[in-house]
């Protein structure tokens, strides 16, 4: 099979992406244009924004763990006004569809924000209903089907753009939460955000992070998130975007086989900033080797 016979294009609802590889929210910005051509990506997903400006969490915000990292960045945000006036226009130069990630403390504020960012130049909205740092003890909308249903319904009413729900792994029943999001009209699921974790400095006896707890990501969590994608795939019919510990084309293929239609890359980009373009090239090579012409043929194949 020749390279040009391979199609990496996938559909996320009505949105067609030229390939299934995009950044995870919080691990991307146009600062990366200094490292590679950002238009090679399937989409651009921005760091979550909030209605009002917020400063995020106190230092330290980072701690490295075995094959992963904890972060308690929180959601530093300049607020939606600054976003619309200054950030959004910067991305107009790119062809890649722009996905705006939003979050808010209440369903009402969330919906208002959703409406505000439903503007030309935005291709989809990713509702971060799962940030484990936002609410006390890591509680978030996406921990329970009920709160997921409630907030996603409000968001659905607030926008006509494709609406993605970013789920939390900090739940006992990801399939039920996925069903709630789908029932509320989400066009796709992003599975999943970071897992709530913590670390303690045995010299000082103090938590390693200023915010005490933070989100675990990186290769360490991949088996957990692959499992969740698989469970969601069995539970709902809408497309799933897999995220968690992806750093190679094989990792991406694993998520596709588990049922994801696309993947996002977070922590791996910090270590190797060209991880995403390398995954795109690697996926193409993998498909040539396996004699598979359309990447869509891989989606959910492990469930067969």
């Amino acid at each position: 099979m020749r390279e040009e016979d391979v199609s990496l294009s996938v559909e996320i609802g009505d949105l067609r992406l030229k390939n299934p590889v995009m950044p995870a929210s919080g691990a991307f910005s146009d600062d990366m244009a200094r490292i590679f051509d950002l238009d090679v990506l399937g989409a651009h997903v921005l760091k979550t924004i909030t209605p009002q400006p917020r400063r995020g969490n106190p230092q330290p915000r980072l701690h490295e763990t075995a094959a992963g990292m904890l972060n308690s960045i929180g959601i530093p945000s300049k607020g939606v006004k600054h976003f619309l006036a200054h950030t959004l226009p910067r991305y107009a130069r790119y062809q890649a569809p722009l996905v705006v990630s939003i979050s808010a403390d209440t369903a009402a504020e969330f919906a208002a924000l959703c409406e505000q960012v439903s503007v030309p130049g935005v291709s989809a909205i990713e509702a971060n209903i799962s940030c484990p740092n936002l609410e006390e003890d890591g509680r978030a909308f996406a921990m329970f089907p009920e709160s997921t249903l409630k907030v996603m319904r409000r968001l659905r009413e607030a926008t006509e753009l494709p609406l993605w729900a970013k789920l939390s792994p900090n739940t006992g029943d990801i399939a039920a939460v996925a069903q709630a999001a789908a029932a509320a009209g989400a066009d796709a699921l992003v599975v999943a955000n970071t897992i709530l974790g913590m670390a303690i400095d045995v010299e000082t006896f103090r938590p390693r992070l200023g915010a005490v707890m933070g989100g675990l990501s990186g290769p360490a969590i991949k088996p957990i998130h692959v499992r969740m994608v698989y469970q969601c795939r069995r539970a709902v019919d809408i497309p799933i975007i897999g995220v968690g510990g992806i750093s190679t084309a094989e990792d991406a293929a694993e998520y596709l086989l588990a049922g994801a239609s696309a993947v996002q890359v977070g922590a791996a980009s910090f270590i190797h900033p060209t991880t995403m373009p390398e995954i795109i090239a690697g996926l193409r090579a993998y498909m040539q080797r396996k004699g598979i012409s359309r990447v869509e043929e891989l989606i959910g194949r492990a469930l067969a």
Partner: protein
Amino acid sequence: MTTYPIQEHPCTVLTNEMVAPQYRHLMLRAPGAALLAQPGQFFNLLCPPDDHTQPFFRRPMSLYRLEREKQRLHFLYKVVGRGTRALARMRPGDELNVLGPLGQGFSLHPNWKTLLLAARGVGVATLAPLAEAARDQGRQVIALCSARTRATLLAVDYLHALGAVVHTVTDDDGSASMPAVEAFLQGVIVEEKVDALFTCGSKRLLRLMQKLGRDYDLPGQAALEQQMACGFGVCHGCVRPFLRHGRVVDLRVCVEGPVFDLQEVMTL
């Protein structure tokens, strides 16, 4: 074809020698694009595994010296934790992946003729390329190197060789006490007609330089350290507050820094 300013560079260790207890000088053979680094910029080093486990993050290290024609990139580092411990075990011929060059380096106003550099410990690694640039541009450099002990004074000979006037102070003989250093630097500033202040490596020295900057109305720059995940601006892990235009603003040390205006830095 576009070339991108920030790249991962596969380098080869040439030497990695102990220069003082706990301090090492790492010299790498590096590809051309890495050698475009400017004084004050840094690289993010992918340290090898330590006792079978790979440190997840890269480790930021300031550019210490560049030899463009010889394709050599130098770092001067202190062994403090698992990343640098693993780095310390690297041998000539080993491969090391460095990401960079990263960040904003020093900027020298054309009018500044005499620069005062004050470094504590391994902070001198960050200031040394500034001394080299100053020499190339015909500026005068006076450097104060502070350390715990005589044995851990670093890069003094190198600064000498770059034509800098080097003063050393240490804790063990009391010469590095803040009052003594303050008095000494006041004298230098007045007598040598210092035009700008530069510092790296110690919060107390930074505060002192800020005070001297205010007292003598001198401009200055400070290079900061902050834990980093990415090093190129996307993770917001390295953010800290600065006083800019009279307001507290959160800036990323990796992109807006690591070199900042001396008076902007908040040291609390």
